[in-house]
């Protein structure tokens, strides 16, 4: 029974859809989700493990736990250049999640651990779609485990750091231009390391500042499994079973944030996230056998992006809190190298949230996001693949937080 549950969890929880900005997913707390994903200058409890470890030692409660997930429903429509042929993705529901637990050792030190999923991408195009020689399905998953320690100098200023253990895997399927059902399947997994550091400064009862840096993590795939299905006559040239190496960067983030308690009820927050996508230059595959024929270098040439966010929280009464926010997420993609594997358009999003506390210790947090990818004609020049993309994404989420 436990095995089955674990299996269900792994198949359900670990798969994620792109929703904006490359393959980053920032749904790491349902309170923050409701506020335009602002979090670095907020002190919402144990979710500070992700948003700002510096705030953790300043949390109000002795112990704090959070658990939650979101369901990403993403739809992409593609129209081939010079034609009225449209193709859609049939992306499965993907469910990024988070679990945090933190406790104060004394007034100055807090420790905690978080498990969360900040990167992922699942695109599933129709098996007969026009770009199937570029990509048919891709599933990229990463799960982070982060033990964290936080220290405050006084009631106003805290710093914190976490060590990140990152486990990732990737599955890629695409067709090959041979007769029959010729295709390539690549599958690999890897473990890597990184860190998350932050500082939190509560300047006054009303004003707080936060800054947080999460390091780049290079996911290096070694000896992944490659399976090629080709006509019999070609099997000596393209062996069925092969191994491949590849690496994919999970970019660094530097987040700046300010929050302001305007009235007793109203909290306003602003944030600017610098996502260092510039590190993603190229996706290269190196094969163990027949490398001269099969190796490929696929330029991506991403650029850094800056995401402005704004969020608000309104305390209706002791039971209810309402939230809203919005943000604009630039596409990090390059004009010449936009691929249908990660349909990342300039995206505008609004967010809504609600918390309900039936008892003082417990809060049920729900959020809803809607993302609109700006319609744009894009091209992947190395394959001469061109067309217009549009995306709409809905993300409902639910979580609970519990304090002692």
């Amino acid at each position: 029974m436990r095995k089955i549950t674990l299996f269900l969890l792994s198949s359900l929880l670990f798969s994620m859809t792109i929703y904006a900005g490359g393959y980053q997913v920032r749904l790491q707390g349902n309170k923050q989700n409701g506020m335009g994903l602002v979090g670095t200058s907020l002190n919402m409890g144990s979710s500070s493990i992700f948003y700002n470890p510096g705030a953790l030692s300043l949390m109000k409660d002795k112990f704090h736990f959070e658990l939650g997930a979101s369901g990403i429903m993403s739809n992409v429509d593609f129209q081939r250049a010079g034609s009225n042929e449209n193709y859609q993705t049939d992306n499965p529901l993907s469910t990024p999640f988070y679990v945090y637990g933190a406790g104060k050792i004394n007034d100055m030190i807090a420790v905690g651990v978080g498990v969360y999923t900040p990167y992922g991408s699942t695109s599933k195009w129709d098996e007969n779609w026009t770009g199937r020689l570029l990509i048919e399905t891709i599933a990229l998953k990463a799960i982070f485990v982060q033990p964290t320690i936080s220290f405050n100098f006084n009631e106003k200023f805290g710093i914190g750091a976490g060590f990140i253990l990152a486990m990732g895997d990737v599955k890629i399927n695409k067709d090959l231009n041979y007769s029959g059902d010729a295709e390539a399947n690549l599958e690999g997994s890897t473990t890597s390391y990184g860190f998350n550091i932050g500082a939190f400064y509560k300047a006054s009862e009303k004003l707080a500042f936060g800054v947080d840096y999460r390091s780049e993590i290079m996911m290096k795939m070694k000896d992944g499994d490659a399976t090629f299905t080709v006509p019999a006559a070609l099997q000596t040239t393209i062996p069925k079973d092969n191994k491949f190496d590849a690496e994919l960067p999970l970019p660094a983030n530097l987040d700046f944030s300010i929050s302001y308690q305007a009235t007793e009820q109203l909290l306003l927050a602003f944030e600017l996230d610098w996502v260092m996508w510039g590190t993603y230059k190229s996706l290269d595959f190196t094969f163990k056998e027949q490398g001269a024929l099969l190796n490929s270098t696929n330029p991506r040439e991403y650029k850094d992006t800056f995401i402005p966010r704004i969020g608000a929280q309104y305390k209706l009464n002791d039971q209810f809190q309402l939230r809203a926010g919005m943000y604009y997420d630039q596409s990090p993609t390059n004009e010449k190298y936009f691929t249908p594997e990660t349909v990342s358009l300039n995206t505008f999003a609004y967010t809504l949230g609600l918390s309900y506390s039936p008892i003082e210790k417990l809060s049920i947090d729900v959020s809803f996001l809607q993302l609109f990818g700006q319609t744009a004609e894009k091209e992947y020049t190395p394959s001469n693949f061109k067309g217009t993309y549009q995306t709409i994404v809905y993300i409902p989420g639910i979580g609970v937080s519990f304090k002692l």
Partner: protein
Amino acid sequence: MKIRYLFYLALLAFIVSCKPEVNEFTPSNGSADFKTYVALGNSLTAGYADGALYKSGQSYSWSNILGQQLTTVGGQPFVQPVVTSEFGVLPGKRKLGFSVDCLGVTSLGPVLDNGELDPWSTHVDYAVNNVGVPGAKVAHLLAPGYGNAANLQAGLANPYFVKFAASPDISVVAQAMSMSPTFFSLWIGNNDVLGYATSGGAGDVITPTEQFGQYYNMLAQTLVTGGAKGVLANIPGVINTAFFTTIPSDVIDIPDSPEGQGYLAILNGEHGYAPYNAFMESKGLPYRITFSIGPNQMVIQDPAMASYGLPAQLQIRQMVEGELALLTLPQDSIKCATWGSAVPVPNQYILTQAEIDNINAATIAFNNIIKQTADDNGLAFVDFNAIMVDISANGLIFDGITFSTKFVTGNLFSLDGIHLTPQGNAVVANYFIDAINGQYGAQIPKVSVANYPPILFP
């Protein structure tokens, strides 16, 4: 209170059900009328591939692909004179398969694909939009009786046209006009040089330019009489096709081994070409035949050397860089019967530089006429000659598919090395669409090349 929640719920459901929709392209006919499209031409228009006109190959003809796209801008269904056999009307269809050569080496390559042919008794008795006839030259489209079975014996009729000619003495162009076309494509002239080229300059003659111009103009004038608009395409340099570029001229490879050294001594010795070289020197002629270890140019027959008063057995020489061997050259004869070294390769398998010059000159002259005709009549025009030169030099990539002029692996030419693969036909159809859209301000949707089959591997 409850009603309000219901309202919110309904609003949420509405928001969630809204899907992205891209609608950037609206098909339109521009200033042309595509109601009745008729395609005139040769084997390329007919849908000939892999050495035959067969059922599925015909269904992937570029003209059929174009005809289907035109139905989105007011065109009526495009009807082809359907071939019912997968093996064609005449034998000769190729497929990729394994064969064992004279040395006992098994390799993958084109092999004959024999099967039950299209029955001769069946005559296409419905009106067709595709009147492309494999083998037709420009003059043939004007010739009455080109589809009359009684003329086959005399070589004045074409079996493919016999299959679908509306009446025995109708000409191809007259049959096209009987459809009252509102739009036409005319891609003709290839065979006016190709027949000469594929016979190694030995079995056919290039149509004289003046005649070509006269016939071509007659065709175009007839086609536009009813006010029809159309598209013309020129002749791609045939010598860029895989048929002429696959077998290198220096295919005689003498290994650095005792056997190779021995063979070399014979070839260069008194029982080989030494007397030939001495004779040529004595006559003051520049011809020499010498072999060395490694790749060597083939020895060929060159009847043009008769102009030096040489007897037939001395009208031979080694090929020079730039001359071409045809795909039809029997490989086993090279490997096991000393063709190209001890035995000169017969003329019909080779294009000499003089023959290539003739072909190039004719292609340029014909293409000038075609371009002029397009300009004079305000017709759309596709410059396949330039396209072919470009693909030959740089290759082409489309939806992740790489094309080149290489045989089999290039994916552009089918297994006969001249006609197109289905994906090649789709590329060609898109070039036609670009030209038509440009000339008439139309918006004909282009096809997805990836939706068409590549070369089939066993």
